[in-house]
């Protein structure tokens, strides 16, 4: 059974290692600061005992005041999971660090988030539109599109 790690315990660990990153946490998820996302992700991946080496999915939701990015991480060895969230309040030019260097599975998913929401990922090797054609204007999945 995949154990859902307690968000609160993990939040404490993350806050010790990288101070100032955790914004909030609840039973299943941890919300971190967007600027420190890459460091938190690296901490989660490389710490023995946590070992989150498998990225399950990465997506974004548009709550009109902010974009919320949701990542679900899994550890194959310990069979536990965690939901990592971050928020991006900038609507004109949202930018979030990329985690492609840690989990290559994010390569297409971050491109899709860029295509659908307009969120730019720093450090992504090839950030282009994925599902719509080149030259498409607008970001379809935003709430104010159509």
């Amino acid at each position: 059974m995949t154990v859902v790690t307690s968000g609160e315990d993990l939040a404490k660990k993350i806050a010790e290692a990288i101070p100032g990153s955790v914004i909030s946490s609840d039973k299943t998820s941890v919300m971190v600061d967007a600027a420190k996302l890459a460091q938190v992700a690296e901490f989660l991946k490389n710490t023995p005992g946590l070992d989150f080496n498998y990225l399950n999915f990465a997506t974004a939701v548009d709550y009109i005041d902010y974009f919320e990015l949701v990542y679900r991480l899994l550890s194959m060895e310990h069979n536990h999971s965690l939901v990592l969230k971050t928020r991006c309040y900038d609507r004109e030019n949202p930018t979030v660090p990329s985690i492609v260097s840690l989990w290559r599975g994010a390569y297409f998913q971050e491109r899709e988030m860029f295509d659908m929401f307009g969120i730019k990922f720093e450090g992504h090797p090839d950030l282009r539109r994925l599902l719509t054609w080149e030259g498409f204007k607008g970001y379809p999945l935003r709430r104010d599109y159509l």
Partner: protein
Amino acid sequence: MPIKTEPFYLNLGPQHPSTHGVFRLRVELDGEVIVNVEPIIGYLHRGIEKLAETRTYTQVIPLTDRLDYVASMTNNLAYCLSVEKLAGIKVPERAEYLRVIFSELMRLANHFLAIGAFLNDCGALATPLIYMWREREKIVDLCEMTCGQRLLFNYMRVGGVSQDVPEEFMPALKKFVAEMPKFIGEYEQLIKQNEIFLARTKGVGILPKETAINIGASGPVLRGSGVNWDIRKKDPYSIYERFDFEVPTGEVGDCYDRFWVRLREMRQSVRILEQAIVQIPAKGPTWADVPQFFRPPAGEAYGHIEAPKGNLGFYVVSDGSIAPYRVHIFPPSLINVTALADMAIGWKVADLIIIFGSIDVVLGEIDR
């Protein structure tokens, strides 16, 4: 004097007999050796995620059919599981068993098509494909008996299944399950030891274990590389804990291993079907009475299943109204395709087709 050569770009374009859909691969070739591969997708993008935001929860189910159109009931199941998690709805016993039966039937149908198309790409004209298709026809006939549709079933509902199976279903299913092991054995015998097939697939397109985990691959692609990760065992959903089955894994991660994993998975599916036929309660409700415009509490849920192609998940966010606020579909084929460049570089054009066929993608899922 060295001969000047330059690599040239070949478009395995959106229209190609073997790209399993409208998929474009921009290949950089040096003679016949592949130097770089770049997938370009989006030719089948229909905006399912955006459409789902303006439909009620039940109206989204036919949209999910069109994702993996080869095994459509599994998409329905994944979506219904997520919404049931969100709303806390409990599914009755008989419906759970029916769901398991149809999931495994869909797995069989998908693997028949996957293996048949894979062998077609290897060049064995269409003979294995038509043999596999004969079995798939039987499964599709069973489904037609139940819900009237042959390809896009729209059978699962939030809270159960849409209707009960007719009386002639169970005897037909028993007959099908009784003959299946013989057919699978026949295909194993015909294909497994074929010299040319072994020469084409053994050692070709190796995906190392570490890369597979890093990429987030799932399904037979991950298990072919030697990782024992099957969601039905590691994170069971529905009533899969009650069934006794094994999870086959490969060793090396080449095309042959992925094919061999799929073949053994078919046998395990038949095993599950045999157990489900025995355990299913003879009568019972097949749908928890969920109101037509039900409003789940505000929140989010992620439900995933072991679809035939991998880990298919739905992330559903609700804001308390009759339509979901956001539905995100997580397709296994998209993630598995990330590995294509790793697997294909250094091989030849003919191998590229085979490697791509062994990943088993369907464009409806990738493009949504």
